[in-house]
């Protein structure tokens, strides 16, 4: 192995450790903050799952947003080659940061929404409608900047999510129809769609090598 490739490998390993530690820290602090604001014991399993998925979206959006606001630090914690790449991808990263944070906040609010609770049912539903509208506007604004791999990635993630969510719903619905399982609750459906999309994006991005340290 040449000195240059050994040095590159060491740099990549160091960056991976920084990314894992910072991601773990943000996740840990975010979870702790969420736990101190709400009492999970008073929530149903569905509420906790939807809230948890919302928290993941929210933290990812904030993480990317932070990287954009502080590009030098962002180049160390985000999977980009250097500061310049953050500037090149600023438009796309800004859009995904806003969309992810908005969807995350809306999911968390929905999980907490109930009659008489801090978040009213109308606010919970309105948040989801607003978050979806924001995502549609951002996607429509940005898709002309997608290059061919981004399109391919979007199609892969969409296909994967459709097949995975469809299969689970088909089986769960069938089992519930014949009395072998309880029917999915409304929040379980939301969790399945939001979680399924997130998982599909991760799988597609991993397959395209985007999760490899750079």
């Amino acid at each position, binding site marked *: 192995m040449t000195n240059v490739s050994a040095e590159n490998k060491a740099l990549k390993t160091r960056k991976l450790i920084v990314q894992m530690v910072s991601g773990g820290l943000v996740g840990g602090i975010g979870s702790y903050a969420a736990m101190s604001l709400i009492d999970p014991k008073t929530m149903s399993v569905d509420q906790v799952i939807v809230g948890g998925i919302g928290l993941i979206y929210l933290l990812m959006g904030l993480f990317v947003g932070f990287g954009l606001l502080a590009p030098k630090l962002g180049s160390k914690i985000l999977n980009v080659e250097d500061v310049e790449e953050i500037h090149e991808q600023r438009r796309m990263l800004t859009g995904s940061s806003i969309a992810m944070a908005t969807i995350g906040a809306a999911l968390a609010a929905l999980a907490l929404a109930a009659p008489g609770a801090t978040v009213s049912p109308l606010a919970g539903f309105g948040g989801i409608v607003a978050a979806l509208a924001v995502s549609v506007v951002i996607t429509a604004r940005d898709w002309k900047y997608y290059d061919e*791999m981004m399109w391919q990635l979007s199609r892969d993630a969409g296909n994967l999510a459709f097949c995975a969510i469809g299969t689970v719903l088909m089986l769960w619905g069938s089992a519930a129809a014949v009395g072998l399982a309880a029917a999915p609750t409304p929040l379980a459906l939301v969790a399945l769609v939001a979680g399924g999309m997130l998982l599909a994006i991760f799988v597609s991005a991993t397959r395209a090598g985007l999760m490899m340290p750079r």
Partner: protein
Amino acid sequence: MENRLKTYRDGVGWSQGELARRLGVSRQTINAVETNKYDPSLPLALRMAKLFACQVPDLFIDHWETEENSND
């Protein structure tokens, strides 16, 4: 699919960012092609070959053989 994109890119001394800019794609796309994680579309492969003044089969290595050749 295996390819020699990095070899050709190194040959002209361009960074991934420079090649991405010339081809109108993201750096992530160039990185994914070079690490064999993504096979570019035919138009992009043709543009790459044009940029490096070579043929597409010089850049991308396909091990598939026709039945006639594999029987030889």
